[in-house]
């Protein structure tokens, strides 16, 4: 199958710091693809490159076979790549509903002239969007909180809202940056269930960064392991687990029995 996302020889330098070096991997449609690696391995930088926040120093990112080079983040989002953040970045002062509304209907016109006129047709479309967003929130168990301020939600709900907001873009590829951050084992177990539901229900391809090994090993179809900005291994959970380089770099020699 043709890959949905191809990262080709991407290098990212910040001054003297080499954050990502010759990174290459492919994400197959329908897969949940994990990226693991120690802190500072360049995982989040890779996400920032894919979503267009950074322009890579070298290399290219292809989505559905087309290069994303030079594309603005808003265009990349419209093409179907959505993401969440390691430290939740909701619009805290907007309502839960507005957080989802803002991402939905990304194809709505934002051109200047149309902005000034509120035509009846536009108003009807807006109403439809709101209905759709409320539906989406309902699916994520946030229906009752729709008119609350996003910043007032509990931590777990904020995480779910961030994913709901990303899904409002109707993406083909969802990037999750440490979705289990700050969760205990029981919560993480629930998250795995939730991610499975998300993948089946929306048939979305996922690329996720995670430190929580249990989550990655049980949930991901394929895993890329980074260290110091380079790919050191790639494969299924079983393959990666038994790779000596991975054991040394990531799990550490004393955890080698894992």
């Amino acid at each position: 199958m043709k890959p949905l996302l191809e990262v080709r020889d991407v290098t990212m330098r910040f001054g003297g710091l080499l954050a990502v070096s010759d990174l290459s991997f492919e994400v197959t449609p329908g897969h949940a693809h994990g990226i693991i690696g120690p802190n500072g391995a360049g995982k989040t930088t890779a996400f920032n490159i894919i979503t267009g926040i950074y322009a890579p120093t070298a290399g290219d990112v292809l989505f559905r076979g087309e290069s994303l080079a030079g594309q603005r983040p808003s265009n990349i989002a419209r093409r179907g790549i959505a993401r969440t953040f390691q430290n939740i970045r909701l619009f805290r002062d907007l309502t839960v509903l507005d957080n989802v509304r803002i991402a939905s209907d990304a194809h709505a016109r934002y051109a200047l002239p149309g902005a000034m006129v509120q035509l009846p047709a536009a108003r009807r479309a807006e109403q439809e969007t709101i209905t759709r967003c409320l539906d989406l929130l309902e699916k994520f168990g946030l229906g009752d909180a729709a008119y609350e301020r996003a910043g007032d939600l509990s931590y777990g709900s904020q995480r779910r809202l961030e994913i709901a907001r990303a899904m409002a873009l109707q993406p083909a590829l969802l990037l999750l940056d440490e979705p289990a951050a700050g969760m205990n084992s029981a919560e993480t177990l629930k998250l795995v269930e939730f991610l499975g539901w998300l993948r089946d229900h929306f048939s979305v391809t996922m690329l996720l960064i995670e430190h929580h090994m249990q989550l990655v090993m049980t949930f991901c179809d394929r895993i890329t392991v980074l260290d110091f900005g380079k790919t050191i291994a790639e494969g299924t959970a079983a393959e990666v687990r038994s790779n000596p380089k991975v054991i040394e770099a990531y799990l550490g020699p004393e955890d080698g029995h894992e």
Partner: protein
Amino acid sequence: MDYFAQQAINAIQLGSIYALIALGYSMVYGVLVMINFAHGDVFMVSSFFCFLLLLLLPVPFVAALIIVMLATAVLGVALERLAYRPLRNAPRVSAIITALGCGLIIQNTTLSLSPYSQRMPELFVPVTWNFGGVTVSSLQLLIIGVSVGLMIGLDFFIRRTRYGMAMRAIAQDRITVPLMGIPVNTMIALTFAIGAALGGAAGVLYASAYPVISATMGVLIGWKAFVAAVIGGIGSVRGAVLGAYVLGSVEVFTVTVLPSTYRDLVVYALLLVILIFKPYGLLGRPAVQKV
């Protein structure tokens, strides 16, 4: 009592004009955390746009208002595009110095074209009514009505439309907004367009009420409107309006009890006192530290 009512109407009229200008400062600050110090001069030049328009073509009030607002919006967008956008990621002080410079360019260009004050042709022939000793002119009602109408429209726009929602989101997190598929540059340009258009409306209304315009008038009025925005809590749209009416009232009522030379002293003293007790202004909120 009649005297008080009379002054109250004057205060609302002055406050309305300040409010329209203060909104421009506050909206731009809200979105970019930048003070557009050229805004006072944008206001000034809009009254010259109105003057030129009336020289060329004696259009009725409403047409003049719309044309001047559009022309000023174009100027606002041009400023953003040419002067501020290239500095979006530069240190904040560069943007502020640039804004001051742009203000000086606008002011001195106008001054070189019109070294003397100009007498505005009459846009509107006011009728005055007398309500038991209180004189109200139709011009005052028009100024207050147009301003309040524009402010209500803006409040609706910001709170209810997706564009307003996007602007509020940009104010909170400019990095995340494009990842929602929203073109941030377009939204920032829109913010400048609206802010400048409101300044343009203020220019037309001001020139109708005080029909002598000069190239330097934007300085003091711009500063006052900026002070109003700060008093209300810069970044807050409702705060800018509140601050402007507070400021207009303080100015008008100061002059009723003290010599008019005390007016600016009282205004700036008020700013200091409010900032001591409410450092973020009346309706402002502490900025959330972004990570």
